[in-house]
Each structure stands twice: as C-alpha cells, then as structure tokens.
C-alpha cells in the first residue's frame, strides 16, 4: 500500500476532530426519521406485555417463518454471488467476445422489479412457485446487485499484486484464490449482505410465489388487523435479524482499502479463453434468458393475449406521472439527508455520528409496511397535518432507501481528502461555505449515482405507497399490484412493462458509465 495512502488514512481516521456545528445539526433529521420505525416497533411490542410476547413468538409458526426467512436470506446471496463472480471474471478478466454487450445484459435485470419477474414466472405455472422457485427467481433478480460491485473491484485491482505473486512462484488458480479473491472479498461480502437485507424485506415477490417469511406474515397480520401487536413483535424479530447484516457491513467497510495516488496505468492482463469462449457465450445467453428474457417474454404474452388486456390502459399516463412525481423528489430528499451522515463519519469522529450512520442499514431490512405504519402512528399522534400528504410518503422513501444513497456517496467521499476542506478554510471560507465550494463538487459523481439508485428503488416501492399515498394517487407499481390482485394479468402487464422500460434507461446508462470510467 502506498505511503501516501497511509498518510491520508491517518489524516482521515487518526485525528479526532469534532464535526462542525452545521454538520452535527444536519444529521439530527435523518437520525430522527430512522429512529421512528425502531421506536414504533419497541413501543408497540412492549404494549403487548410479556405473556403475549412469549405466547406469540414461541409458536411453531414463528419457527416456520424463521426457517423460511433464513433459507431465502442465505441461499439467494450465496447463489447470486457464485453466478455474479463467474460472470464478472469472464467480462473483466478474460477476452470474452461481445463483453460490452454482456455487461449491460447482465446488469439489466436491475430494471425488473422482483415482484414483476416473480409475477411473470409464477404465471407460467405452479412449478415456479414455492421455495424452489423463489430461490431460483430471486437469485436471478439479485445477480446484478453483486455483479456490478464485483466488476468494479476486479477492475480496481493493481496488477502489481499478481506480478509479485507470480514472481513468488504462484500459478493462476493460486493467484485467484490467494490474491484476487481476498481483495474482492469486501465488495463481494458487502453486496451479499445487501442482497440478504433485500431478501429479509422482500414482500411482493414472495407473496406471488406463496413463500411465507416474516415480511409476508407481517403483511398478513396488518391486513387482518390494522396496527397489530403480533405484527410489531414479528417486526422486532426481523430487526434483530438485520443487526448482524448492518454491523457486518460496517466491519467490512473498515477493512476496505481504497487505492489513491499514482494509479497504475498498465491494463490488467486478460486470459485467452480459447475453446471455452463458445461455452462462455452460451452461459451468458442462458443467464440473460433466465433473468431477463423469460420475464420479458411472459409480460409480452400477457400484454398481447391476456383476457383483460387493454383494461385500465387510460391510467397509464397518470400512473407514469405519479411514479415520477414520487421517485424524483424522493431521490432529491434522500440524497440531501444522506450527505451529512456520510460526511460526519468519513471525515470526523463521534459515537453519535457513527450510530446515526449505521441505523439506516438496520432499518433497510425491514419491510416498507413497518416503516409506513410507524409513519402513520407518528403522524396521527404528533404531526396531524402530515397525515395523508405526499411529504409523508417521501419521508418514508427516505428511511427505506438511505443506505443506498449513503453507500454511493461514501464511495466518492473516501476519495476526497479532508485537506480540501481545510485548504478552503485557510483561504477564509466559513465551514459550510468551505464544504460547498471545495468538497461538494468532488462528491458529485457519488451524489448523482445515489440519486439515480434511490429514484429507481422508489419507483418500484409498493407497500408504503399503497398504505400512505393520498387518496386518488396512482403509480405504475400500485396499478400493477391492484390488477394482479384481481388476477387481471393482461391489464397489469402494461404497467409492469412501463416500469421495466422506465427503469431500463437509467440502468443502461448507469452500467455503461460505470464501465467507461476506467476504459
């Protein structure tokens, strides 16, 4: 590791400089927002009293939910990780033909919400339902979430490490196992944890596939009885399950080593595939067909052939506007809230800041419905005018998607030395102005990535929107959901297609851009 990096890390982590006042105040709002669902779960859970807690949680049913939840949350990240790392190896380190095309094709399932692909697969027949189908479908859905960061990590490797290992007598397989894998492990594990937390919170897809987990059970409970204590208790269990994920992510991040300074201009060597080329091409074709092709063709079938096709098509314009109308302001608000959280932990030290930075990851694995109910609970009791407003929906989006924004912005922030801010201060700028003039412009790539990820995620958000949006609100996601609930698949298909198309644009641009950076 370069000297300069050690120096920089010393600058960033070594000195304990207190954060400026504006920053300390700015983290209070996201902190309060994220505390809300936690407070709600704890307060409602406690109200139940010890005997109810014991009798509710110590049931065979709870064990059944726990087993299902754990199976999904462990098998999907592992399988997606194996597929993603193989795909990334072929596109980044081998002379794969049409590599550019396959990169985009492998990332494209990001544009397909899990509940849309589950709907498509499950409408093919019962063979694709239940646990086996769920693992298969959710694995294909999750591959891009692991593939993209692993690609970035593979491309960021310094080829000197491989040179050194070769000069010490290590062959290709040993180098992969002893040099490359350990270096991409933080990216791999970080992405795996993200997938695991998505799996804990997944509702729509598992509901289509008839797999019962804590999240679907919570939803059932709320459907049966609004503001339900059992549901609050189940949410509490889910929150406990999220804890190792949230703190595991933080541990990994501490070990992550960014390379600063004189980057090595030399390109990473690529392995000649020879006869394996044709096999690799077939593999990518199969992957793309399964993860994107089948759902897309099924959607097309329902679009053309469904008995209810054409029904409700007049709503597509308003639904499109409705989706954008929530997703774009939601992205702006979430990004704005995430910036101070990242700054306070990247550049300064403090226990509260560190806690505030971790908290959103804890809540990220909670289903939208819990956060939405916490918002209703709070609004009715303490902030009446907020209830039934779009602002409340946006605040819930922010709570649900903060970690996505934090991770993107942090990736940029770790590359911006704090000296920039200090130089601006020495040139006579007050702290906030120094941040705006010196640090903020350098964070823009991360901020742009954060905003597009949050917009993408908000657009497909289902449960909180269903519960909270003011009467008369239509979005692509809610219309799709309402039509499928009535088994009107033909009518639902156009909304899903619009959602996929709308998401496909930023996904494609995002993927192409992220790969162009180092080419």
């Amino acid at each position, binding site marked *: 590791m370069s000297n300069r990096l050690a120096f920089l890390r010393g600058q960033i982590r070594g000195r304990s400089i207190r954060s400026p006042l504006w920053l300390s105040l700015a983290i209070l709002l996201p902190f309060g927002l994220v505390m809300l669902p936690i407070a709600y779960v704890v307060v409602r859970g406690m109200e139940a009293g010890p005997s109810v807690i014991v009798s509710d949680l110590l049931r065979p049913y709870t064990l059944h939910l726990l087993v299902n939840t754990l199976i999904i949350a462990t098998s999907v990240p592992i399988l997606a990780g194996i597929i993603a790392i193989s795909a990334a190896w072929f596109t980044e380190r081998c002379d794969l033909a049409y590599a550019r095309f396959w990169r985009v094709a492998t990332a494209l399932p990001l544009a397909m919400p899990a509940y849309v692909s589950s709907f498509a697969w499950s409408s093919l027949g019962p063979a694709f339902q239940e646990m086996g189908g769920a693992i298969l479908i959710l694995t294909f859905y999750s591959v891009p979430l692991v593939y993209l960061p692993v690609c970035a990590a593979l491309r960021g490797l310094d080829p*000197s490490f491989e*040179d050194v290992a070769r*000069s010490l007598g290590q062959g290709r397989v040993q180098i992969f196992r002893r040099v490359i894998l*350990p270096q991409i492990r933080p990216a791999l594990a970080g992405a795996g944890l993200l997938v695991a937390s998505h799996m804990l919170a997944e509702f729509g897809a598992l509901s289509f596939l008839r797999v019962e987990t804590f999240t679907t059970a919570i939803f059932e409970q709320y459907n049966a009885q609004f503001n339900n204590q059992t549901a609050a208790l189940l949410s509490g269990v889910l929150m406990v399950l999220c804890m190792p994920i949230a703190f595991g992510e933080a541990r990994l991040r501490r070990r992550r080593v960014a390379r600063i300074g004189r980057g090595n201009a030399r390109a990473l060597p690529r392995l000649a595939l020879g006869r394996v080329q044709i096999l690799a091409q077939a593999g990518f074709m199969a992957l793309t067909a399964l993860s994107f092709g089948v759902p897309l063709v099924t959607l097309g079938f329902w679009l053309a052939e469904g008995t209810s096709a054409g029904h409700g098509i007049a709503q597509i314009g308003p639904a499109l506007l409705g989706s954008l109308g929530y997703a774009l302001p939601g992205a702006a608000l979430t990004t704005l809230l995430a910036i101070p959280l990242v700054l306070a932990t990247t550049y300064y030290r403090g226990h509260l800041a560190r806690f505030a930075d971790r908290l959103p990851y804890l809540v990220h694995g909670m289903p939208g419905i819990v956060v939405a109910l916490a918002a209703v609970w709070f609004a009715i009791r303490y902030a009446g005018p907020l209830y039934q407003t779009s602002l409340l929906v946006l605040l819930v989006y922010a709570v649900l998607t903060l970690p996505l924004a934090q991770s993107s912005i942090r990736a940029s922030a770790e590359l911006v030395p704090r000296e920039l801010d200090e130089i601006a201060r020495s040139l006579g700028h007050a702290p906030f102005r120094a941040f705006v003039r010196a640090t903020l412009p350098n964070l823009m790539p991360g901020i742009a990535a954060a905003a597009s990820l949050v917009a993408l995620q908000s657009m497909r958000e289902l449960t909180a929107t269903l519960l909270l949006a003011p009467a008369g609100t239509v979005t692509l996601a809610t219309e799709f959901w309402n039509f499928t609930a009535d088994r009107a698949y033909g009518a639902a298909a156009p909304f899903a297609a619009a959602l996929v198309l709308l998401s496909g644009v930023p996904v494609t641009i995002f993927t192409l851009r992220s790969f162009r950076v180092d080419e």
Partner: protein
Amino acid sequence: MTMRFLSVEGIRKSYRGHEILHGVDLKVEAGTILALLGQSGCGKTTLLRLIAGFEPADSGHITLDGRVLEEPGRHVPAERRHIGYVPQEGTLFPHLTVAGNIGFGLSSTQIRDGRVEEAMRLTGLGGLGARMPSQISGGQQQRTALARALAPRPSLILLDEPFNALDMALRRSVCADVVALLRTQGATAILVTHDPQEAFDSADLIAVMQSGRIAQCADPATLYNSPADIDVARMTGPVILLDGTLHGDHADTMLGRVTVQAGAPTSGRATILLRREQIVQAEPGQGIAATIHRRMFRGDHILAQVQAGGMEFETKLASNIPTSLTSLHISVQGAAMAYPVL
C-alpha cells in the same frame, strides 16, 4: 554459492506496433548489483518485466545460471523463473499481515522451518510480524517487500524503483539498508532507477538506458569520468560543454588548452566535456579571467555561476573564497572527454 549469471541478448519488445526495446544486450555476473539507469519512458521497466517473465519478449534470448528462460518459441513464465521482484511502492498484500506477506511464496514446510522469522530478522522487522501493512511505516513496508522477495532465496532479485514512494531523507537510508542487506546475502540484483545518485550509491555496475537501448554499461567511476556519449554524461551528472580543436593529446578551447583523455581522436573539431568540479581557481597570473555572477553556498563548496571566455556555466568553487570576490582566474584540471563533431 552457486554460480549465477544473467545473460540478456538482442531482446526486442513492441507494444501496439511501437517498439520499446530495440535489441537489448546485458550481462550480469553472480553477486553483482547492477543499476539500470534511465529517464522515464526509456524502456527500463519493460526490460525488467521481461527478465521477470511477466510478458514474453518479441525476440532475443535470456538465460539465468545456464538455464534458458527466453528464446524464440520458448517462454518460461514468471512463476517458474525463481526471480524475486520488488515493485514500485512495495505493493504489500493489504489483506495479509507482515508475516503473511513474507511467507506468501514459501511452502508450509519452509514456513515451519522458520524462513519467515529469518527474513524478518535479516530485514530488521522483528516483532512486526502480526502487524497489517497499513500499520507500519513506509520504510518498514519497503523492507517487508524486500523480505518477501528474498524469503524463497531467488537466484536474482529485481527492484523496480522501489524507493520512489519514500521521501528524500528516508529514501537514502532505506536504499543503503537494502543494498547492505543484498551484499551480505551475496545476492545478484538489478535495481531500476532514474536517480544517478542512487545508482552510484548502490551499484557495482551501471547500465544507462536510452530510448530502448543500453547506451553504456560500466562501473560508476568509468561511467562518470568517461561517458560513452554526451547523453550518457548528462544522465550521470551536470556537464560543461566547450567547442574545441584537437591537437594530439590536448584541445584548444575558449577556456584555454585542455588535456583530453587517451583514446579520443587526435585532430579536427570536437565537443569537449568537463565536469563542474574540473574548473578550479587558478594560481595568480595563470588561467583565464572569469567573473562570478551568482553564488550559492553549499557548505563544502560554492556553486557559482561564472562567465569566462565568452560563455557562462556553473562550477564548484572552494567554500573559503571571500564573499567580496567577484573576479578571479580559473583553469581546468584533469583530462576531459572529447567527442568528434559530426
């Protein structure tokens, strides 16, 4: 100790149709430390990478200790060459401890035999084995990289500008430590550098590389005093160039009569090359008149900007000449190099 002998013959290498190495020849005796000196872009790192075996050469031969590593149709890959490599900035594996890094190229038997501890003791890293690379200083990182390369007891060690990342003061002392260690081990080593002082300090032999060729390979004194051409002379230190006319063993120049080294042409016009320290203050009544325009006190000498014989140049003068002195007489001591004007 086994006889180690590296021979590089007619090595060529092109990247994207652009030839970087135009037939390089190099011989290194066992136990020699050779510095490969050249400006950036001259091909010295490429040559090092070909010797290491990271990439195949386009043509040419490389043999080490009687074993053919490279010839047309044959390329022994890096992992089977048994050549140690210390890259720029050390490049320690960030996920392994100091001991983990040093033991990376050893078998588990060798690790059990205490080879890691031995390498750490040799490099003065005792007690740091459990530290991560980020927890040790730049100098210690560099020594860890060296220990890692030495631990498998390679027949040859390649060091690619290994001290670049260190600051100046540290650089000299780490370089001295490394060279002392290589010498006690009797190691054969090639050190790539662009710093002539580093090359003089560390090497038995210096090969000066210029645009893909070895321009001269000689011991430091020969290289400094009898450079093969003006570019090599410039690469190894400041020069003063004069126009002159050769007459047997001397040349007439604007600074008067200068003795030329044996082996130079004996007639015709030539460029006469002097080192700064060859200009000295002359006895009263001798030499030619000179004016000091600017002076910089350097402790053991004064670096003076001097005008004499219609030209201006820098020279080193004794540090005890009075500050008020602005005009003096100078003369040339020792023999100069002469290069015919083509």
